[in-house]
């Protein structure tokens, strides 16, 4: 376990009238892999940049390892940031890029050499020290950016949508590698993404942001199963919102509803469309004015109800989440 915890205390931030962050508080524990998840404009990148020191909160404070760093410039924070575009310096070799932070820390030459080699080895680029960044593929550039950050042994690792410039297959591979690497060195890590699948797959805990506020904070499964509001429910996956008796709404995932014979179950509907997806069949079912989405697992020889068929829908209220309107 290495690194330090990060505390964000009542941080607000904005330009003029525009509020980008509004009274945000959260605690990232030592060694934790934490994700900021949100759509464009939610303030997630701004929050990450405030932790890195690129900007000062309008109000509130930021603590790293218990120390208030709100007014500390970026170069004295010992926070490692991997940029979305990697920000490798094109006029320096890979080795020189990685050595930079240690040189700024005035480490002895021999130590720098050894640590640069070790860092490049860690990301699988031991033989690339003499290359120029432009000679590397996107995935390799990403690894260099990571090595450049890790080599200074930062207190916190900040990753700003690090996989967004990679193609789909490489993204999944790098994601697994990142998680493995983080587990191995146990460094406190904060990861910004707008991709809920990515956040679910890697984060110990995450915060969902929208319009500068934290909507909900917790473990990915908790947030998926027990969303606090309609925004979180919808952002983390497909959600059916059904008015509940006595006020509020049920949040039902497509797989939480089962299809039964017409006339049975809690609701009655008509199949609008059935999409065969392989492992499951996705049904769109008109219930009154609303259309619900229901996934049924597919098994050999099982015939799905056809469009136009009358069906019943059932779910278990005791195992469902109810949110306020």
């Amino acid at each position, binding site marked *: 376990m290495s690194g330090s915890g990060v505390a964000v205390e009542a941080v607000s931030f904005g330009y003029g009238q525009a509020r980008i962050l509004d009274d945000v508080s959260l605690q990232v524990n030592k060694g934790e892999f934490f994700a900021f998840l949100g759509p464009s404009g939610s303030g997630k990148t701004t929050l990450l940049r405030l932790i890195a020191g690129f*900007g000062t909160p309008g109000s509130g404070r930021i603590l790293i390892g218990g120390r208030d760093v709100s007014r500390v410039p970026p*170069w004295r924070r010992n926070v490692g940031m991997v940029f979305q575009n990697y920000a490798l310096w094109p006029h320096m070799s890979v080795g020189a890029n990685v050595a930079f932070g240690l040189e700024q820390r005035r480490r002895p030459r021999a130590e720098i050499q050894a640590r640069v080699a070790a860092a490049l080895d860690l990301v699988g680029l031991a033989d690339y020290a003499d290359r120029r960044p432009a000679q590397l593929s996107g995935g390799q550039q990403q690894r260099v950016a990571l090595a450049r950050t890790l080599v200074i042994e930062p207190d916190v690792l900040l990753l700003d949508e690090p996989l967004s410039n990679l193609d789909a297959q490489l993204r999944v591979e790098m994601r697994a590698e990142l998680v493995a690497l983080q587990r191995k060195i146990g460094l406190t890590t904060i990861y910004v993404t707008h991709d809920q699948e990515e956040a679910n797959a890697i984060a110990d805990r995450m915060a969902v942001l929208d319009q500068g506020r934290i909507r909900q904070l917790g473990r990915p499964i908790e947030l998926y199963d027990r969303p606090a509001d309609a925004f979180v429910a919808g952002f983390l996956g497909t959600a059916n919102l059904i008015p509940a008796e006595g006020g509020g709404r049920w949040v039902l995932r497509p797989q939480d509803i089962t299809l039964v014979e017409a006339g049975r179950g809690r609701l009655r509907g008509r199949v609008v469309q059935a999409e065969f997806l392989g492992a499951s069949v996705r049904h769109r079912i008109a219930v009154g004015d609303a259309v619900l989405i229901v996934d049924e697992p597919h098994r050999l020889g099982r015939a799905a109800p056809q469009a136009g068929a009358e069906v019943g829908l059932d779910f278990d209220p005791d195992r469902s989440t109810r949110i306020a309107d």
Partner: protein
Amino acid sequence: MTAAVASGAAGTLGRRASPGQIAVGLAVALFLALFLVLPVARVMVAAIEGPDGYTLDHFGDFARTALFREAFANSIYVAFMAVVLATLIAVPLAYLLARFRFRGAALIQTLGVIPLVMPPFVGAVAMQLVFGRNGSVNLLLNEWFGFRIPFMEGLNGVIFVEGLHYFPFILLNLSAALSNIDASMEEAAQNLGASGWTLARRIVLPLALPGYVAGAALVFVKVFDDLGTPLLLNATNLLAPQAYLRITSIGLDDPLGYVIATVMVAFSLAAVAASALVLRGRDFSTVQRGGGGLGQRELTAGRRIAAWVFISLVLLLVLSPHIGLLLLSLGTVWSFSVLPDAFTLAHYGAVFGQSAHYLGNTVLYCALAAALDVVLGTAIAYLVLRTDLPGRRWLDAVAMIPIAVPGVVLGIGMLRTFHGINLPGSDQPLATFWGMLIVAYAVRRLPYALRACTAALQQLHISLEEAAESLGAGKLATLRRIVVPLMAGGILAGFVTSFATAAVELSETLLLVTREADAPASYGIYVYMQSPAGRGPGAALGVIAVVVVAVATYFSHRLAEIDRAKRGKLGR
């Protein structure tokens, strides 16, 4: 969101300007105030200073004098006609370049650089010998067809020489605008049924117009302000020569010289402002990711021949001052004949024997002026793009003013401001100290260097600096290790441009040089060219200056290419 944050990071995150930034900003502001704002202001004040208080009488005198009215009209006429000539040459070339797949493309691009390495006044005398009443071309025309063309008669000569010299400004700006139009712009119009002339008129021309206007305005101002060419062609009834002659013959206290200078500044500023107004809100760069430019077609055989004929003709015209100058520098006697009577290297011998100091002075002054320019340019670019220093945009705006300040005006202003102040420890006026020439060159060339530095810094993604900061490098270390090395290409380009253009500057030079020993090559060329006997050595000195400028320009292009190739493209 990321973009907003990235630009905001340089903006208003409550960061206060550091003492270092404030000190640099003040130093730059002081320099600009002393050597640009003050001299120009002194000129304007002198134009309205009467024996008792301020008065507009001098402007009345200006308007009542037929000579000045004529000079004013002539200046506008010459500048306008030079734009017309430049347009006739540049527009077809730019269109060929953008629209057609064509072997001549490299040649057109070369055509766009050749004139720039030789200032018009250097070639002016040679052009007389080639295109004048008794020059090579008219002698041949007269012999073969029995008529002459008055290329060089009176104001025609100025228009002809300047138009040929300045058309690249339109060519370069228009080509850039055309290559910024994405093929999809045209394809969408074609998809909706437009083609041929409609396509050109409705889509291509409006999108390219800003580039043309920018180039044309530049040509207009340059020609309007030029002093050397009219002087050498003896067309003195234009504003710039009139201002120069008033100040140098009547003296520093004659108000009419300042009135003419003020009129020139006002008119140049108005032209630049008018073009800016036309261009406002018209940044039409539509290139999508992955390259752009119009779709290119093949030329039909007939059109290809027409294109080659046109290009060859332009090439001959563009090269004629260079060829004429070379012949002049190598000829013994050249008068009333198609070619010189005989050839000799004696003129070059004369130059290296008696006039080597001109070249030494040019290299010294221009190198120092260019160095000053890139230091100022880098400082201003950094303050504007990367700090919150209050007033930083003013610095940028003021530093761009020299675009619209004629060299004559700045020269007169320098004289007016500094003639009463002596160099510390001597009785030499500061105005005629050779160091002032360096400062004057630097001020006039600052806009070019500043734009080069700004462009270089803009291309640097700010995350490259933030990465250094988060790895422990402070502002100064980041500047030294990341920003300046990555800007090196742009800084070098700015240096070479400043150097090359200062090397052939004449108007400030004529006004500020008082001792022959302190004079640079441009002064030497001018003085030599005054007498028929001096034309040979003058041309030799001109050829040497042109070669130096051409070599410098070539190497800066090569260096920039190598620099680009070395870095390649990085994940952006």
